[in-house]
């Protein structure tokens, strides 16, 4: 049930941009803030998982998330500076942050198999939501060509991460975690 809540929170966070999109859609400074927050949330969860999991496979995945999302965020931050854009806080980035904080708080209370399952389930839901948002709102909505190009460039990484997370999810289910 808790899982449903977090997955839902992630979905809702992105759904709010979809609503926004019907009006004007997020502006580039808002998209920048959403991108940086979305990456940061997954870096934080990955850092926690690196220290808490007992599974080599989950640990390797978590390290991958920290490395890859840090790389994306560095590029996003560099671009934002270059374009002289100030990322603008907005309801989507705020609810992403809240969802990320809630996820961390819950993961901290778990250990062993239930930690791994909860972390990986959330990673699946998170990457699904991000891809959905990239496709429906962020990529079509980005006005600056370099910002749009960056989003297009990182999309395949999110696809690979989702595939990797689903693979781990199936493995954990088999091992009865």
């Amino acid at each position, binding site marked *: 049930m808790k899982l449903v809540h977090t997955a839902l929170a992630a979905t809702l966070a992105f759904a709010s941009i979809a609503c926004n999109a019907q009006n004007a859609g997020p502006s580039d400074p808002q998209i920048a803030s959403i991108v940086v927050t979305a990456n940061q949330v997954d870096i934080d969860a990955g850092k926690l998982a690196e220290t808490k999991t007992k599974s080599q496979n989950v640990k390797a995945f978590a390290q*991958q998330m920290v*490395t*890859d999302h*840090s*790389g*994306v965020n*560095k*590029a996003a931050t560099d671009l934002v500076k270059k374009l002289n854009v100030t990322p603008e806080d907005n309801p989507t980035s705020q609810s992403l942050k809240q969802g990320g904080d809630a996820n961390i708080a819950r993961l901290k209370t778990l250990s062993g198999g239930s930690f791994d399952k909860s972390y990986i389930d959330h990673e699946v839901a998170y990457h699904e939501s991000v891809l959905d948002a990239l496709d429906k709102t962020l990529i079509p909505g980005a006005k600056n060509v370099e910002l749009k190009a960056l989003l297009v*460039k*990182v*999309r*395949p*990484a999110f*696809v*690979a991460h989702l*595939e*990797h997370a689903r693979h781990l999810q199936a493995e954990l289910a088999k091992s009865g975690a």
Partner: protein
Amino acid sequence: MRLLVCLMAALVLPVDAMAATYVVVIEQMRFDPPTLTVARGDRVVWLNKDLFPHTATADANAFDSHDIAADASWSYVARETGRYAYSCKLHPTMRAVLNVR
């Protein structure tokens, strides 16, 4: 002395000059081209244009770049003929083939 080096180089170079350099671009979680065929002695350079590290690691470890950082490259001279399936150790869904003739 310099002349001698030049002379030696002239003798040695024709063999080396035949060797070509190929570039495999790593971008958007793909090796491009996904299949590359080179001659023995050719050089292959893997250039990582993604925003995070990748590796080019042959299945039986015939070659292994280890981590290639974002915007960095790794070069390898193909000495042994064969078909080498390789992948990124960090992202196992990324696969490609190097053929050495």
